[in-house]
């Protein structure tokens, strides 16, 4: 099984009902608040994380970018809870939110991807063979949000609670059911939504260049041993044939060369 992803392409509902500064709370070990708030652009974040990588503290680098461009409070709560389940803090990486995964997804949805750039959007919108790809009159951002709202209502139906207040075990079980097509949506096919839109965004958030806000500190690249950009390997390919490649321990990203 190639662990690759192929993605596809949302209304918003729900009422304001949550108070959450969870993200800030989770980031207690990071930078002073003032600096963190100033780090609104991805580049500034990267500079910070590059600094932090070099810091002798030995602590993992974590996300220092706060404030969402696309998510409202309910959406943020759902997405953050989901990402911390899909990427729990463990011996391999910090938790998903600290890895920048929520910032990644938020920025993608707010940006050209989320707005449907370069995607055919003319009607009519008819349902047919799945192999033609999704046929919804929605941008990826709209689709994402419509799915979050439906999934949250499904959690409420099944567990009597919104998704973000489920225990991690319940939340994980809910996502497994959802991905397997066992949670009925209202208007949407929630399995299709999760598998074609949410899951690819998750994988991208983990493994794309940190330039985009996820994979903070190249934590996922380090985890698998991907060396990143410096790829002039004409000699390496001979020298490290069948042997571990030393550069894999110390990856470099776009920010390191900018």
């Amino acid at each position: 099984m190639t662990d690759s992803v192929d993605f596809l392409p949302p209304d918003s509902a729900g009422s304001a009902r949550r108070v959450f500064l969870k993200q800030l709370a989770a980031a207690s070990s990071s930078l002073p608040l003032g600096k963190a708030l100033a780090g609104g652009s991805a580049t500034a974040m990267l500079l910070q994380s590059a600094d932090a990588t070099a810091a002798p503290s030995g602590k993992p680098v974590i996300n220092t970018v706060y404030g969402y461009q696309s998510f409202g409070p309910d959406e943020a709560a759902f997405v953050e809870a989901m990402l911390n389940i899909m990427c729990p803090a463990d011996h391999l990486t910090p938790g998903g939110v600290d890895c920048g995964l929520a910032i990644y997804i938020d920025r993608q949805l707010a940006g050209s991807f989320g707005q449907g750039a370069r995607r055919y959007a003319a009607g009519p919108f008819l349902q047919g063979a799945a192999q033609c790809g999704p046929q919804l009159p929605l941008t990826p951002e709209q689709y994402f949000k419509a799915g979050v709202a439906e999934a949250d209502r499904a959690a409420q139906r099944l567990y009597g609670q919104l998704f973000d207040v489920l225990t991690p075990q319940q939340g994980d079980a809910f996502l497994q059911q959802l991905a397997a097509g066992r949670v009925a949506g209202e208007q949407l096919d929630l399995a299709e939504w999760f598998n074609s839109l949410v899951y690819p965004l998750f994988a991208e958030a983990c493994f794309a260049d940190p330039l985009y806000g996820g994979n903070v500190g190249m934590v996922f690249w380090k985890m698998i041993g991907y060396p990143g950009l410096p790829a002039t390997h004409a000699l390496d390919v001979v020298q490290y044939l069948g042997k571990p490649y030393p550069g894999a321990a110390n990856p470099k990203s776009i920010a390191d060369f900018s």
Partner: protein
Amino acid sequence: MKTRASKTVVIVGGGLTAGLIARQLTAKGVEVLVLERGGDHSKGPESSLPNQRDELRWAVRQGLIQDWSRETYTLRHQHNQTALPVRWMESFLPGQGLGGAGNHWNGHLWRWAEYDPQLRSHYLHRYGKQAIPADMPLQDWGVTYAQLEPYHDLFEKLFGVSGQAGNIGGKKLPGGNPFEAPRSGPYPQAPLQVLESGLVFKQACEQLGYHAFPQAAANSSGAYTNPDGQKLGQCQYCGHCERFICEANAKGSPQVLLYPMLRERKSFEVRLNTQVLGLRYDAAGKRATAVHCLDLLTGEEYEQPAEVIVLAAFTMSNTQLLLHSKIGKPYDPVSNTGVVGKNFCYQVNAGVDLFFKDKWFNPFLASGSTQMVIDEFNNDNFDHSGLGFLGGATIQAYQFSGRPIKGRRVPDGTPRWGTAWKQANADWYAHSMTLGIEGSCYPHRGNYLSLDPTYRDAYGRPLIRMTFDFRDNEQKMAAFLSNKMMEIARHCGADKVGSLQGLVTPFDSRLYQTTHIVGGTIMGETPHDSVVSPHLQHWDAHNLFVVGASVYPHNSGYNPTGPLGALALRLGDDLQRYLQRPGRL
């Protein structure tokens, strides 16, 4: 609408084949104008460090690929279904911009089997009159491999191909492909390095009596200067090759080897950001008179007249331009009449992942063409008596990149997220490899291209409608080849062999397979069964020529570009003859 000053030769599309034709013509001082819908990629982030190495931007979000919001295709599997638009295409990735898909390709360079251009005759001769099913309209091309060989040779020298010859003038050479069509000489450069995955595969093949050889590649194994004085750097095995532009100028591509040189030639002109919308056709005079253009920067529409018009805009655009301009009779699968859109074929794929605790594959140390291949079960290289299908596939251990978003492998049963998912990625990323098959796809009466009755592109033209599925022949072939591949997989000594990832049916636009779509404007010996003649001349317009994989009446078990390059170079020479004495070639 304004009419601009007439040109001698106008080529629609500024990709690989267009560059080769223009090379031949402008060398003789013939005036050539290339019209390309995209821009110039040579100075942007796509071809400079550090942004060239951005998997998300170029590979996942398809930064170099056709803009689907403007032009896409509709799809249905059977002709009695309603087709729906593919709103975001993954299965194949046409290029956009000077150099076309020839910039962001992998670089595998094949000559097809010696019998491929005579495939129908070949099968009938070997297996008798009943060999070819009635719904499989295989046909000969009307040109032979021997006629194309000098052009293959030239193309390989121009693109600095790195490979190990297996057959020079009929003499078999060790280490090369024993099934190779006879070559007039060796490859211009030594093959690329063989990677650990290739060594594992080679050893398993030896146990089974198969002959593995390194893929011939347009990724330059050394520093190289071609016969035109154009230079390639040495391939850096950078792992950002297919879907990317080579920042090291090491990939044989039109952007490096053709267009910079052509732009220095006086008789050459290229107009970028120029969308060709259709052709003007004089049915009585059997001539294409002009090209209908839209300047995408200014919005101006105009007509561009020419003495000769060449369509070199890739399979789908070539077919669309003919259908939309009503040149030639559209194919109808029910009455089995007409030719334009006929014999649309794709490619058969399957794969399996292998996991080795103690082996280091370093997937990121790779070029777009680092693979070891066997050809034993390709096309008609083996006896098909009693098998119930025709065609076959290469089997290969390929390693093109370790790009982390899309290029990770985990064993069967790995959860899709959580600590166990992360652990599996950490454990197996550098310790896994893949085997694959890449196979032929023969024409089927029900697989074809036509104009969609409902959906339109950004310019108001009907979208091309694909009616396509992998039919019985291809499914049987894929099953047979998958067994052969799994047998090799079991001989590789892996700790874990993944389950077979078989041919996906019905055809699925959401999965990348290959960009090897062929047919639609096929070549052949008579106007009844083809759109263009063996000289790629349109039967209904003698000054109109079509080049590209759209002229292949079938797809072989190889990548398409070798014979395309040869056909394009030959067309360049044919056009010089045509211009001296316009008429049927």
